[in-house]
């Protein structure tokens, strides 16, 4: 019984939150890594691209809710995702047309593009705040829980509760579907293959007749979709606030770099590594160990490796360690 209680506590406070958070990070990191692999720069505006896409989705959600359209137990925001993607794609393509294309034509160095993307980041930042404001927005509706902690306790008679939110389930399922589609697209379709060729060797790809503008266009389309999906899932699971999306940039980049920049598989692995480290290292293991250890060995302290204030520092530390010992990342992406 103790063993079961311990596992339930672990699942409730570590496994489930970390898996949901990891999926959101993985989707974000995929966008970053695609831009890096194909357009060859680190896109600092990615966090705010997520915010822009989510903003459009939130506005659409409100519209749908006002019209009485809903999905029953599922959040209405799922219906709004396509509109969010449309909005984000529009903005991103406009930016590419008037900003990035100019630097691409000049064959600007990646570091210049990084700074340019920072400028874009600030503009998106302001754009989101002007339209929807800097405050927290809640747009989740539908059934909040698949299983709530109280129900679980009553059902099983265990001392520990297990809660599973609808948003967490949706996050994981959506992430799996999106990733599957992305990999199918990159590996099986003609356009996907030409993108990978372009990423591997730009000159060779151009010689074999691949249209670079088309590759760029498709890349932005995919990135805007990934960003919006990641943003909406994050917003559903937590809440939508422009500033937190800006802050997400750090764990997302850490995830992409840990996995190996330019490597999509690595981005996913990196997302989970970062999420599990953040949650696991700041979790106080006293309760779980109290169930699992024999009484004589039960800890008196909280068994918390790092206080929760340092949550964001963990991404930094992992980043530094990876860059020191394996600069190409776990999955051998391009070395930064």
């Amino acid at each position, binding site marked *: 019984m103790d063993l079961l209680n311990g596992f339930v506590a672990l699942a409730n406070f570590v496994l489930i939150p970390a898996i949901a958070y990891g999926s959101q990070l993985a989707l974000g990191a995929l966008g970053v890594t695609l831009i890096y692999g194909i357009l060859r720069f680190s896109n600092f505006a990615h966090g705010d691209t997520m915010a822009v896409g989510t903003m459009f989705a939130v506005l659409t959600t409100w519209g749908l809710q006002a019209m009485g359209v809903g999905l029953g137990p599922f959040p209405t925001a799922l219906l709004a995702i396509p509109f969010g993607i449309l909005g984000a794609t529009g903005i991103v393509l406009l930016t590419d047309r008037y900003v990035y294309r100019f630097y691409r034509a000049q064959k600007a160095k990646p570091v210049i593009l990084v700074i340019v993307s920072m400028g874009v980041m600030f503009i998106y930042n302001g754009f989101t705040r002007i339209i929807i404001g800097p405050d*927290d927005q809640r747009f989740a509706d539908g059934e909040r829980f698949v299983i709530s902690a109280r129900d679980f306790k009553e059902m099983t008679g265990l001392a520990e509760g297990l809660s599973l939110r609808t948003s967490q389930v949706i996050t994981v399922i959506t992430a799996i579907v999106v990733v599957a589609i992305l990999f199918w697209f990159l590996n099986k379709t003609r356009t996907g293959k030409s993108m990978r060729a372009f990423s591997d060797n730009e000159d060779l790809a151009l010689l074999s007749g691949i249209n670079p503008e088309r590759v760029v266009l498709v890349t932005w389309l995919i990135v805007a979709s990934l960003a919006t999906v990641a943003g909406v899932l994050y917003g559903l699971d937590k809440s939508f*606030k422009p500033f937190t999306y800006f802050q997400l940039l750090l764990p997302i980049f850490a995830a992409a770099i840990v996995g190996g920049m330019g490597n999509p598989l690595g981005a996913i692995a990196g997302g989970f590594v970062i999420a599990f480290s953040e949650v696991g290292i700041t979790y106080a293991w006293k309760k779980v160990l109290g169930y699992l250890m024999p009484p004589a060995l039960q800890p008196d302290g909280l068994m918390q490796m790092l206080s929760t*204030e340092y949550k964001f520092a963990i991404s930094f530390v992992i980043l530094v360690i990876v860059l020191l010992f394996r600069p190409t990342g776990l999955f051998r992406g391009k070395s930064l």
Partner: protein
Amino acid sequence: MNKILTATAACALMAGGAFAGSHTNDIKMGIILGFTGPIESLSPAMATGAEMAITEVSDSGMLLDGATVSPVRVDSTCVDSAAATAAAERLITSDGIKAMMGPDCSGVTGAVLANVAVPNGMVMISPSATSPALSEAEDNGLFFRTAPSDARQGQILAQILNDKGISSVAVTYTNNDYGKGFSDAFEAAFEEAGGTVTLTAPHEDGKADYSAEVGALASAGGDALVVLGYVDQGGAGVIQGALDSGAFDMFALGDGMIGDGLTDAFGSDLDGTIGTAPGSDNEGTAKFAEMAEAAGIDGTSVYAGESYDAAALMLLAMAAAGSSEPGDYVDQIQMVANAPGETIMPGELAKALEILADGGDVDYQGATGVEFVGSGEAAGSYAEYLVEDGALTVVGYR
């Protein structure tokens, strides 16, 4: 030559203007509040509260041979100490204020006190800085506050929990001067009364996700979770996380958590939760609320009454000292605030000025029942809240 002449003439004109200005018998009072930043929604009512007292005194014409008083508003930002210090400096050097009402948040109040008020010998009364650390700040006797220190609120919250028979709690506080001071005070009081604090964990405001914080708090355990944060910030996020994961279902809340946003968000999930916030049931409060309504603000808005009292106290002290110089009237503030003397309610400032002019003594009660203790801070009275059927209700005063 011509240029020098013009310049001299211009200088003379300007000097003349300044000279004339200093003779019009107008006393300026600085109102430094967070018109932008985290408490921007509270500041307008607070400023209007202070200006109500200023207008009342000014219109009576009984302060220092008919001196008028005019307010000068500046922005403290609540969080940016450098900006607040610069604004306060400007009030003294360029506006020539004689009294300072504010600042509001504890952090900027400490900065303005140390960097501006003490070096310039300016009297300041904060209506809302509640950090216990300010009690020990080096102030040369120039600093007062009409809001009670959180040390007091910490004791009261501990007392309520103790009365309810709760003996072990986990504490989370918002990571700033207010939260840290409050939680230190609460912890000390609670442990002194024989309770156990299993974990004290800060949380940062403005994050989307508090599952790590909630996980740690849940692991530490306790009969209740004490949340000393802000209702529209991290405090609500922590409660949400705790409810979602089933970690706690009983909460004890500080004043920053008491608001409609709380029950709007959680409703009856919070039934049984207790909380404290400054509040009293004295007659001045009701009277001030009436006056405030006439002035177009909500008199029950947090710290509006404290602001009225802060401004009124400085003006009454000027009358008692017969001088508007900070160095002269500072000693009179305690005297007009506390017994003995005629009790003064809000709206009776003219009466108080008259008594003081005749050499009498007043006991200013004002909107919040001001009573200064220790080094010039309000003793304070607190309302005890209980969440019942998804609504906040006041169950008593302590």
